[in-house]
């Protein structure tokens, strides 16, 4: 079996901080992508099942994003469960990673997808600036909170090895 994605750590009862944080990042990215897709694409229908105005690159990227999001969600939770089972989970670092992943994805989506590549916008037919500001500020807050949690739990780890 391949362990190329997941580093092999055989010792139990020792928190694997790096894996915990990465599993958190994976789940965070996947959940934010799912929220984006389910809430904004499907419930609010601010953009549609297929938006005729977007180029074929957007079609391909959308398909890839969607497939990756489902796989990352499932894989992230199995990874999380594996760490928990082996008592190698650091809860704080997993939460930090989750916030980092969620905020990072939202900021990436808001800046690169919306502004640089212009694949789609948050909403059409309205004044965009307030939407962009709210979207990107929310992403930055999540990202900074994640960085703070990771930094805080790493700095206090040498003292008490557990958690």
């Amino acid at each position, binding site marked *: 079996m391949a362990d190329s994605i997941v580093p092999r750590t055989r010792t139990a009862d020792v928190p694997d901080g790096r894996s915990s944080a990465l599993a958190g990042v994976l789940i965070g990215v996947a959940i934010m992508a799912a929220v984006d897709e389910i809430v904004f694409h499907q419930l609010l229908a601010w953009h549609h099942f297929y938006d005729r105005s977007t180029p074929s690159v957007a079609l391909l990227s959308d*398909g890839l994003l969607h497939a990756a999001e489902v796989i990352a969600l499932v894989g992230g939770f*199995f990874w999380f469960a594996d760490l928990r089972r082996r008592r190698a989970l650091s809860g704080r670092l997993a939460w930090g990673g989750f916030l980092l992943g969620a905020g990072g994805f939202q900021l990436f989506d808001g800046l690169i997808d919306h502004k640089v590549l212009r694949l789609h916008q948050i909403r059409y037919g309205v004044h965009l600036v307030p939407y962009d500001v709210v979207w990107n500020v929310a992403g930055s807050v999540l990202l900074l909170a994640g960085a703070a949690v990771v930094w805080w739990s790493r700095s206090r780890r040498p003292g008490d090895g557990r958690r």
Partner: protein
Amino acid sequence: MTAAPPGLPGWSGLLAFADGGHGADGSGWSGSLPLTHGGHGVDGSGWLPLVPVALLAGGYLLAAVRDPRGWDHRRTAAWLAGCALLAVAVGPLAQLPDDPRGHMAQHLLLGMLAPLGLVLGAPVTLLLRVAPPPTRRLVGRLLRARLLHLIAHPVTVALLGTGGLALVLLTPMYAAAERHSALHHALHLHYVAAGYLFAWALAGPDPAPRRPGLAVRVGALLGAAAGHAVLAKYLYANAEILPPGLTDRDPAAFQSAAQLMYYGGDLAELFLAVALFATWYNRPDRLRPPRSTLINSTGRALPGWRRAG
């Protein structure tokens, strides 16, 4: 496999069928269906494709009962669920009047959902348990064949599956299959075989020598799922001209068929991802580190093909 997935039309009826009539024959209901209008491409003998499905279910049950070590009932349930989905696809759905949505539901069941149930039923493991030694040797030789490893490599299967789908839907083959029932049945057989091969190559409890690592399998699933989603949206966007060669077309029906393809593909991708990561999670050398090393050192479990947990 047993969870009730939302979103497919007629799913409740399908589950009711799976509860009530998943026995070995399925003859209980086929007689009550209106066979008068014959369906598409099946000339009068609409129940004939049910015979192989009944044989699959019956043969498996017979083998499961004869297993000396006792066969896991969850495997039997998965296999019978797969057979039930096959029966729905070739029975009631084939009797519907010509409609792209019905075809799409049929293709989803045949190519994606039913094969996963069949793969989770571990038929090869069951065969290896109950068959006489010559058959077991033959199966072993087949499983070690280099050609099989090449064909059943996740990347090959992903390319063949998604590429084959594109070939059917983007060329006049779809229109041809509407007219020729032999081609129609051959295509259905192909969907089942390709779906089974894909699910087996990615996940499942059956022996799969030289199954590539997790990264390759995840990559293959990603590529196939993305290709499927893009193809569905492409068909949706071009419902007026695709699939080519049809005489009287209904773009709205083709659009909703494309949507069904998109969401159905999602569902299958989700199930397949769960099955794939579950094989990683349950692999024998990772179970409960301190104590299980003792259990595993008996050498009973070959990596990756015994159900663990």
